[in-house]
C-alpha cells in the first residue's frame, strides 16, 4: 500500500488521475487488513489490496463530488453498497478518481476540477468518463479501480488506457450510492490490469441489494467459466460495428487481428447484424439526457452543494445551477428537459424509447446465432486533449460501439488487444443479459491466447 502511495506521489503531477487521495483512510484500512491477514479471519481475495474509486460513488465521510463544482465539499453521510461490500472485504481505499462531471463525457476533460492525462501519452486524453480510474490502474497507482458505465464510460477509457474494464449486466451491481447520471443505463464495474482481477472485483461487489429495486436477485457466478477457453464458442462479428463513422483503419486492423487470435484459439467467428446501429447514438442522446435532467434537479442548493445567492429563491436556483454545472452538463440538462417537455415528449423521448426496443431486439436476434459479440471498444485511439471539446457530436461518436450495450442492458468487457499508432486499442466482448461470465471468459481466453 505504501508502495502505491509512492507511485501516486510520483505519477500524479504527470497524470492527474485523482481528485482526492485518502492517505489516512488507506493507512488505517491497510493496518486493519494486516490484522486480518495475520489472524486469518475475514480474509478475502481483496483484503489489503488498494483500489481507486470513481468520484461518483459515495464513500461515507469522504468528499464525493461527481467531478462537479456544485458538489464541492460534499461529504456523504452514508456508504454506497459497493463501498460497504469492499470495506467488508478488507479493501484499502486510495482515493477518489477524476471523471467527467456527473460522468458525462468521453475524455475526462469535462471534470469540474482538472483534466486527466493518458499514461501512455500525457498529451492525450485517457477517455472517459471514468478516465481517472482507468489512468490510475494503467499507471500502476492502483491495483484496481471502480468506474461507472452509462454509454461506455468504463470500457472506452479502459480501451484508451490499455487496461481491462467491465460493465456488468444492468442490475448485477447495486447502484445505491452511485450519483446517478442516467438511472436506466448506469452500472458500476471494475478496472484492472487483467481479466481475472476484474472478475474477482466484480464477484465481490455483485449481488442483490434491498436498497436498489433494480438490482437483481440472481446468483453471482462470474468466475465459473473464466478459464474455460473459447473452444466451440461462436463469436458474432457485427458488420455494422466495423463500418461506423470515424472508425480508424489502425483500430479496425488491430481488432481484426485480435479476432484471428480468438479464431485460432478455437472460436468460430460468425457474421451477425445489428441493423439499428446507426440510430443508437440518437436514441441514447435523448434517453440519457432526459433521465439526467431529472436526476440533477436535486442540486438546488437547499440541502447540500454550492449556493450562489440571488435576490430570491428563483434567482438563487438559476445562478447556482448556471455556475455549479459545467457546459456539457448544462447542455445535456437542456437537451433532456427539451425532450421531455410538453409537445416534444412523443417526438423525442417516447420515440427514443421505442428505438431502444429495436436496438435490444437487434441484440436478441444476434445472440440467437452466437454466444458473444466481439468488436472494437472505441473507433479511435486516445486523442489529444482539446481535440473534440468544441464539437459535442464528435465527442459523442466515441461511444457509438459501447452505448448499445447500455441501451440493451448487456454485460461488456474491454480487453487490451494491441496498439495503433503506438496507442492502446481495446477489444469489446458483449454477451447476453446475465451472461457476464461468458463475456469474461471470452476476454480471458483472448488474454491467454494473446500472451
Amino acid at each position, binding site marked *: 500500500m505504501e508502495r502505491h502511495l509512492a507511485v501516486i506521489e510520483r505519477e500524479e503531477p504527470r497524470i492527474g488521475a485523482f481528485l482526492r487521495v485518502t492517505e489516512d483512510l488507506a493507512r488505517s484500512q491497510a493496518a486493519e487488513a494486516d490484522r486480518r491477514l495475520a489472524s486469518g479471519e475475514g480474509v478475502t481475495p481483496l483484503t489489503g489490496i488498494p483500489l481507486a474509486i470513481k468520484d461518483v460513488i459515495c464513500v461515507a465521510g469522504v468528499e464525493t463530488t461527481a467531478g462537479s463544482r456544485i458538489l464541492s465539499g460534499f461529504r456523504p*453521510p452514508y456508504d454506497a453498497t459497493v463501498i460497504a461490500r469492499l470495506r467488508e472485504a478488507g479493501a484499502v481505499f486510495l482515493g477518489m478518481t477524476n471523471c467527467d462531471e456527473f460522468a458525462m463525457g468521453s475524455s475526462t476533460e469535462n471534470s469540474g476540477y482538472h483534466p486527466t492525462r493518458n499514461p501512455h501519452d500525457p498529451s492525450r486524453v485517457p477517455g472517459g468518463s471514468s478516465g481517472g480510474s482507468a489512468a490510475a490502474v494503467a499507471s500502476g497507482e492502483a491495483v484496481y479501480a471502480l468506474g461507472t458505465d452509462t454509454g461506455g464510460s468504463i470500457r472506452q477509457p479502459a480501451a484508451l488506457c490499455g487496461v481491462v474494464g467491465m460493465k456488468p449486466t*444492468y*442490475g448485477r451491481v447495486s447502484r445505491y450510492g452511485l450519483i446517478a447520471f442516467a438511472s*436506466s443505463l448506469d452500472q458500476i464495474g471494475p478496472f484492472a490490469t487483467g481479466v481475472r482481477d476484474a472478475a474477482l472485483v466484480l464477484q465481490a461487489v455483485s449481488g442483490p441489494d*434491498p436498497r436498489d*429495486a*433494480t438490482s*437483481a436477485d440472481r446468483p453471482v457466478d462470474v468466475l465459473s467459466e473464466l478459464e474455460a477457453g473459447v473452444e466451440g464458442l461462436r463469436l458474432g462479428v457485427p458488420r455494422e460495428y466495423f463500418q461506423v463513422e470515424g472508425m480508424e483503419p489502425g483500430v479496425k486492423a488491430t481488432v481484426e487481428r485480435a479476432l484471428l487470435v480468438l479464431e485460432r484459439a478455437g472460436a468460430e467467428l460468425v457474421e451477425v447484424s445489428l441493423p439499428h446501429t*446507426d*440510430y443508437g*447514438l*440518437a*436514441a441514447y*442522446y*435523448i434517453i440519457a439526457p432526459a433521465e439526467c435532467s431529472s436526476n440533477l*434537479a436535486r442540486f*438546488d*442548493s*437547499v*440541502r*447540500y*452543494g*454550492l*449556493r450562489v445567492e*440571488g435576490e*430570491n*429563491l*428563483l434567482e438563487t*436556483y*438559476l*445562478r447556482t*445551477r*448556471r*455556475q455549479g454545472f459545467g457546459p456539457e452538463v*448544462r*447542455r445535456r*440538462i*437542456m*437537451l433532456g*428537459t*427539451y425532450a421531455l*417537455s410538453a409537445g416534444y415528449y412523443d*417526438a*423525442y423521448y*417516447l*420515440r*427514443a*424509447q*421505442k*428505438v*431502444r*426496443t*429495436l436496438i*435490444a431486439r437487434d441484440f436478441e436476434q444476434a445472440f440467437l446465432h452466437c454466444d458473444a459479440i466481439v468488436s472494437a471498444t472505441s473507433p479511435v485511439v486516445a486523442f489529444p486533449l482539446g481535440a473534440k471539446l468544441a464539437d*459535442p*457530436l464528435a465527442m*459523442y461518436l466515441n461511444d457509438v460501439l459501447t452505448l448499445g450495450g447500455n441501451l*440493451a*442492458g448487456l454485460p461488456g468487457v474491454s480487453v487490451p488487444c494491441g496498439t495503433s499508432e503506438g496507442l492502446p486499442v481495446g477489444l469489446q466482448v458483449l454477451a447476453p*443479459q446475465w451472461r457476464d461470465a461468458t463475456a469474461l471468459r471470452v476476454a480471458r481466453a483472448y488474454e491467454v491466447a494473446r500472451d
Partner: protein
Amino acid sequence: MSLTAEDVRHVAMLARLGLEPGEEEFYAAQLGAILAHIDRLRELDTEAIPPTAQAVPLPARMREDEPRPGLSQERALANAPAAREGYFVVGAIQEAEP
C-alpha cells in the same frame, strides 16, 4: 428540428439554468446541431413498437413496512449551505415566473 432562442429560454427556465447574455443563440445553434442528428429517429417506423424504459426485466421488489431510525438532525444538516434551529434556510420564494 431547429431550436429558437425562445425555446432555449423556456427550457432553461424549466431546468432552472441561468443564461448569460448571448447564450440563447449559442445553445440554439449547438442543441440544434445535436437534434439534427437525433432527427434520424424519424426515419424509423416505430408505430407498433412498444417503448423500453428499462432494458432488463426485473420483478418489482418491495420492502416491508418496518420503520428504522434515519439520520440525526446534525448529520441531516451537515452539508447544508444555510441552516438554522434545525431547519434548512432558503431565500425569498416567489411563486410567479419572472
